[in-house]
């Protein structure tokens, strides 16, 4: 009996230790980033975020170009993806909840989510880049081909699956008695979607967009391959730039000393931003599904 108790205790201990391990892992990740970026934080402080020059030769580092690049690409990508992801949410959540056509669209979106980032980059390099270059020649700007617009386009394709699948789930959660009430008042389907479903699912759709934003901010490979890698402040949507993730991908392998520390500082900011965005998104979704389950019971 005694040995059994002992094994029991050991088993519980192992479970607890591994769970604690996950917490410790995150804490240590955080600490690693902070400690490694201390030299850079000490030298540049908060001026890091408003400094416009990134020059390894003269050891002057300011992250503003990357902050602007990240914000521009991710919000532009989100803006491009919104009509598509909302259309898919409504398509799968309201018009075609089941059936062959719904399964086809849903599994296609899943396949899209499963394609590795580097392959998006490769495809973008050989199809999207020439396309953007053509547009740039028409518009009359320097035809780089790569730049913020190209990166945003590829990002928008990559984030559609995330916001669309969450959007679909919240659209399905809309209570049917609300919809029925509207139908019985004579509303058309469009009116039900516009006046009942969208307002009801608004916060869920918002959460889906937030999670997609988190993805877009942290996405590295496809952006690195298509953004043009310029360490200067972007001047427009056609201009080559760098994001926080892409500058790390490009420069970290060869960086030493204060350069490496500054790159890790950028990584720390990236980590904090995505974490905040993701936590808010997850919190909103959890709240919605809790409310929905309350209404059912």
């Amino acid at each position: 009996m005694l040995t059994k108790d002992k094994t029991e205790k050991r088993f519980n201990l192992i479970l607890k230790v591994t769970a604690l391990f996950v917490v410790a892992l995150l804490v240590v990740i955080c600490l690693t980033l902070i400690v490694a970026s201390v030299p850079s934080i000490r030298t540049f402080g908060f001026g890091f975020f408003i400094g416009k020059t990134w020059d390894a030769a003269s050891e002057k580092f300011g992250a503003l170009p990357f902050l602007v690049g990240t914000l521009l690409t991710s919000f532009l990508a989100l803006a491009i993806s919104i009509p598509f992801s909302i259309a898919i949410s409504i398509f799968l959540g309201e018009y075609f909840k089941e059936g062959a056509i719904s399964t086809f669209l849903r599994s296609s979106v899943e396949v899209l989510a499963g394609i590795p980032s580097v392959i998006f980059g490769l495809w973008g390099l050989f199809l999207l880049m020439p396309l953007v270059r053509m547009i740039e020649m028409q518009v009359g700007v320097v035809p780089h081909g790569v730049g913020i617009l190209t990166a945003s386009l590829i990002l928008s394709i990559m984030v559609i699956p995330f916001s669309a699948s969450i959007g679909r789930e919240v659209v399905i959660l809309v209570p049917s008695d609300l919809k029925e009430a509207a139908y019985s008042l004579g509303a058309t389907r469009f009116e039900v979607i516009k006046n009942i479903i969208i307002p009801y699912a608004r916060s869920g759709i918002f959460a889906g967009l937030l999670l997609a934003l988190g993805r877009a901010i942290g996405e590295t490979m496809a952006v690195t391959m298509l953004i043009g890698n310029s360490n200067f402040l972007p001047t427009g949507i056609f201009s080559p730039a760098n994001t926080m993730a892409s500058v790390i991908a490009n420069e970290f392998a060869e960086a030493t000393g204060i350069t490496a520390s500054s790159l890790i500082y950028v990584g720390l900011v990236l980590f904090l931003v995505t974490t905040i965005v993701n936590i808010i998104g997850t919190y909103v979704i959890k709240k919605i599904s809790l409310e929905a389950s309350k209404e059912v019971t």
Partner: protein
Amino acid sequence: MEGNQGSRFPLESAQRAQRARGGGSDGFAGGGGDVSPRNRIIKDNIFKGAVILLSFISLLPLLLILYYITRNGIAVINWEFLTQLPRPIGEAGGGIYNAIIGTLFLIVLSSVLSIPFGISAGIYLSEKGEGKMAHIVRLCVVVLQGTPSIVIGIVAYMWVVGPFQGFSALSGGVALSIMMLPVIIKTTEETLKLMPYSLKEASLALGVPYYKTILKVILPTGLSGILTGILLSVARITGETAPLLFTAFGNQFMNYNIFKPMDSLPYRIFYYAMSPYPEWHTFAWGASFILVVVVLGFNLIARGIATKWKVQF
């Protein structure tokens, strides 16, 4: 009276209302504009058409990507491509054998590192899921899942590459295993929560100790779900490139030593795609084809297992 009738016969009521008010605003039409039933129906149809159109436009990139990979990829793939090492530029032929083996190596390495922890932490969450501690663990899983892969690459660099004085397969494995962990924990927790409570009760009532109930009854019953989670996490890391850029790095030669740089398919695709040589670009397409087949294969198998085993529950 009028209003009551109106709600039962919406179209007529709208017509009547329009006639009476000379085209006033209707609650459902969102205020303003023409509210004649014909226009509302047209609007309805236009909206439906737009939704369908936009949905299928978003599939266009997917079809194009698959088409390009298949068209450009299959042409490159032959026996030599699969079994030879890369050759320097200018020399014809060669393949990506070391990248294929390297990817398999990295998958095995990171699976070994993450699966035990992931399953154990998943059991913890499903069994003791209510407390404060479980809440914190869950939050950490969410944060870990959302952490950009490039940041995890930095961390693996600091932990392994620095102390061991050089890029290594081990550091790549560490980075990828951190990325696998949240997926495995989440799916294990979800699967075990689905297990019928009577199963545990029956086992405990027979006098089977708690740990044996978990290990011998609950865990095997939930195996399919856990396996699905593992496969999904493997699919996720197989295509990851960012954390490998400065951990496993790349290697033009065959390498079985986990303390040396190791090649992988995604890294090779990146390297070839960014090179200025058209021959290497075709190689990138070939490697992409293999990578997509592998990743989608893992996803398919995972789905297959999930549906096949669910019947037995």
